[in-house]
Each structure stands twice: as structure tokens, then as C-alpha cells.
């Protein structure tokens, strides 16, 4: 099964973190990504620019509304993601737990709704 690991973090806290901590965190992510790739579980994954770089887009009445900022204001913001391949929830949970964000912020694990399943369930 394919799963998304969605990483939520407090941007303000990250911005204010000492350089040493930031460096350590980056190194931890590097090692984690490498481990995912070596094991064959890695499908995709990247860090996102902070939410101040977000643009929300909505089309209403033929007019495109562009808003500066995220869809919802939250204490923790979506900061990055991984897409992984895992045999089952246990394997996926094990990977999510290893993600550095799991011990600093929150990670959310969601299964991909595969098109074939989507069609057969509907």
C-alpha cells in the first residue's frame, strides 16, 4: 500500500531554533530519507516552504480569487511530506515513528486512495 506521511511543525518555533538544532534536524532528515530510499520504501518526499509562501486559489463565478496565505490558520503548519510504500499499517507506522518530526511535532499517516479501489468502492 502507498501511504502519505504528512509532517506538521510549528514554523515560528523552527525559525527561532538555534543554528545547531536546525543543523541537527536537517542531518536527521537526511539520514531518514536515505534509510527510506535504501529500503525501497521511498516514493517521494520533500520539504515545503513556510506557509507565508502559500497562495490560496479559489474560482467563484468565473473569477479567480487569489489569497495571500494558507487555507486555514493553525498552530502547526504542513511543513513537508513523504510518500512511501509499505506492506501494511504496522510497517507504515514504523516508518512514521522514525521520521524526525514524530519526536518534534506531529506526523499524520494517511493511506493513498488508489484509483482502482476508489472505483470499486463507489
Amino acid at each position, binding site marked *: *500500500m502507498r*501511504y502519505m506521511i504528512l509532517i506538521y511543525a510549528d514554523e515560528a518555533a523552527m525559525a527561532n531554533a538555534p543554528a545547531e538544532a536546525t543543523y541537527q534536524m536537517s542531518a536527521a532528515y537526511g539520514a531518514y530519507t536515505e534509510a527510506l530510499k535504501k529500503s525501497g520504501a521511498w516514493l517521494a518526499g520533500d520539504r515545503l516552504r513556510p506557509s507565508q509562501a502559500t497562495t490560496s486559489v479559489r474560482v467563484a463565478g468565473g473569477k479567480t480569487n487569489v489569497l495571500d496565505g494558507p487555507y486555514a490558520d493553525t498552530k502547526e503548519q504542513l511543513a513537508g511530506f513523504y510518500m512511501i510504500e*509499505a*506492506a*501494511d*499499517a*504496522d510497517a*507504515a*507506522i514504523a516508518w512514521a515513528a522514525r521520521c524526525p518530526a514524530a519526536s518534534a511535532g506531529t506526523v499524520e*499517516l494517511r*493511506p493513498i486512495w488508489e484509483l482502482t479501489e476508489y472505483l*470499486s468502492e463507489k
Partner: protein
Amino acid sequence: MDSRSEIARAAAEAAARQSYGKLVAWLAARTRDVTGAEDALADAFAAALERWPRTGVPEKPEAWLLAVARRRRVDAVRRRLTSQAGREHLKLIAEEAEARMTDEDLPDERLRLMFACAHPAIESSVRSPLILQTVLGFDAATIASAFLVSPATMGQRLVRAKTRIRETGIPFRVPERAELGERLDAVLEAIYAAFAEGWSDPAGTETRRRNLATEGIWLGRLVASLLPEEPEALGLLSLMLFAEARRTARRDAAGDYVPLAEQDYTLWDRALVDEAEALLGHAATMGVIGRYQLEAAVQSAHAARRLTGRTDWVAIRELYDALLSIAGSPVVAINRAVAIAEAEGAVAGLAALYVLGDDKRLDDYQPYWAARAGLLARLGQVPHAIEAYDRAIGLERDPAVRRFLQGKRAVLRN
């Protein structure tokens, strides 16, 4: 219905649930789709529950269920009685399960099913109901009445949990050694919750709830037989059997509540006590202590009264000390305080209770107020004791226990 046909009915029903659970587990373990597996077997299971009490249990009960499920397939498509998923499971039955059944027994996957139902990703309050439904085939209404929630709510929770098993990819697997302990705890906890719900109806007036205690023991036997090397699985079964052995002694002839220490031990079921002792002894040889073994050991210490004529409160207190250190909870702490009061006196017991004083969870916890009232009464602090009895009486839902507490309170008035 006379008692002989009642026994035959119970035996047939147990056999039907046994075979049904094995088939649901086998199908679900292959597809992760519990709902589909249940759908495929629903008609056949209903037919078995209806027919076996009259005709007796067939020689190969699982084969019987499979054959009926398969026969229903044509009708089902026509009447659209079962879901798409159910039909796919019927296909599996026709192609694989029956082929397997001809020469060997179906492998028992019920333990795997239980581990899926008690997975950490499943909300803890629904694990026990989920096991009762999938492994034993109880309907949502029966489970709801036992757990004192509305059938609609229980139905929704069960449906949601089964969907979650499939969608999040929860595995049907007995966990690896390293995480088995923690995960087995969840399974044992779910079984104990089922037993405790049934146990809380001591008069056995509500058949559904009394049955739940029986089913809890049945599940406990199943797990203990499938994991005979796990001391805590044996410990839980031992604990439940000790408790079950005392069922009739918990009420006197007038239906009034009798506290454990005052029970007439000749009323305890000796065969069950002996079995519980043997299980506990066997578990102890494995050298890994745990919560259920300790709780069973407390029961064993109480049961020893039938041999020695007295209760060894010092030993019980030590067991609660150990329990507090590995599985501390307000419940354990209160029982420990009661044991201290018996071993060292009411003042020491009360001191142990007062240590808990600030825990908000105790505000509506009846055993705390009952224990406190009893100790205050022994120390002659009448107004405080009466106040505590009032709290305990107001929090009790069992009329017999309420009468017992009211009686104690009335004595203080004089």
C-alpha cells in the same frame, strides 16, 4: 424450555459461533475486509443458530456453514442481499475454502483477527465490542445493551472500526516477539473488558450481560490455548476463573450483597478455583510477572481462605504493592489501602487512601467512597463516614450494593 434443551441450545450456539468465527477470521485475514467476510456468512450463520439447536451440531460444522453460504450465493445475487464485497468473499468460499475443507481443517486465524481488532490504530473503547462481533458473531444490538450504549451508536462505531481496518491497512498478524507484549496487552484488555461488563451484573438477571462473562472466559481460553507460552494470557484466564467461581457467593439467599471477605467459601465453585490455581501456577513457572498474574494471585490469596479459614491480608497487601508499581491506577491504590487497613489497622488504611485525595477521577468513583466510609466508620468518625456513605450510595448502580451501603449507613445513625 427445560434445562436439558437449554443446555443443548447453548452447545449448538457455541459451536455455531466457534465455526463462524473461524471462517470470518480465515476470510478476513486473506482480504482485510471484515465486513465482506461477515456479509458472506451472515445468512449461513443465522441458519445455523436457528437449526443446530433442533438438529444437533453437524459433524463438520465449518463445512456446513460454507456449503450453506455457497448455496445462498445465487439467491443473494438475485435479491442483492449481500454487498459486492460479500459476493467476492463468497467466491473465495467457493474456490478456496471448500477445497481446503475437504482434506484438512481450516487454519485457525482467530488470534490474528483479534490482534487486528485490538490494534493501536483502533480506538480502545471499540476493541472489545469489535472482537465480540467478529470472533463470536454477536449483533450490534446485543453488544450495545451489554455495554450500555444505544444500538445505533454501537452499530456506527463497529462499522467505522471495520472500515478503518481495511482502509488503513491494519495487518492480520500476530506481532513479532519484540512488540508482542504490548500488543497482547490490548487483546487481553479487550477480553477482560467483555468479562467485566458481564461480571457487573452479579445477580445474572440480565442474560445478555451474564453471557458476556461466559464469552470473556471463552475468549480467554482461546487465547491461552493459542499462546500457551504467554504467562499473562494464562494469568488473565486464571483471574477470570477465580472471579467466576465466586459468582453465586456474591449474593445471599435474600439477594443481598456479600463482600468477598465475608463470602461463604463453600459456595465457591471448587473445580473453577482448582483450574485457576493450576493456570496461575503454570504461568508463574515462566518467570515473567505481569498485571493479570498479580491480580489472579490476589484472588488466589482470597481463595486460600477455604483451606486456612483466614485471609492473609499481609500477602494481599504485598501483591497490591507490586501491582501498584507495574500497573498503578486508582482502582489498585484503593484496593491496596483496604488491604493495608486489614493488615495494619484503619488509621494506616485511611492514610493510604488520603494520599489519593486530589485525584479528580475519584470524585465519581464509588469504590473510593465506599472504602473511605468503611474506614471512617471503624474509627468512629460518624459524620464523615455518613457523608462518604452518601457519596458511595449516590454513585452505585447495583441495587443490592446500594442496599448494603444503606444498611451500613443506618447502623451508624444508631
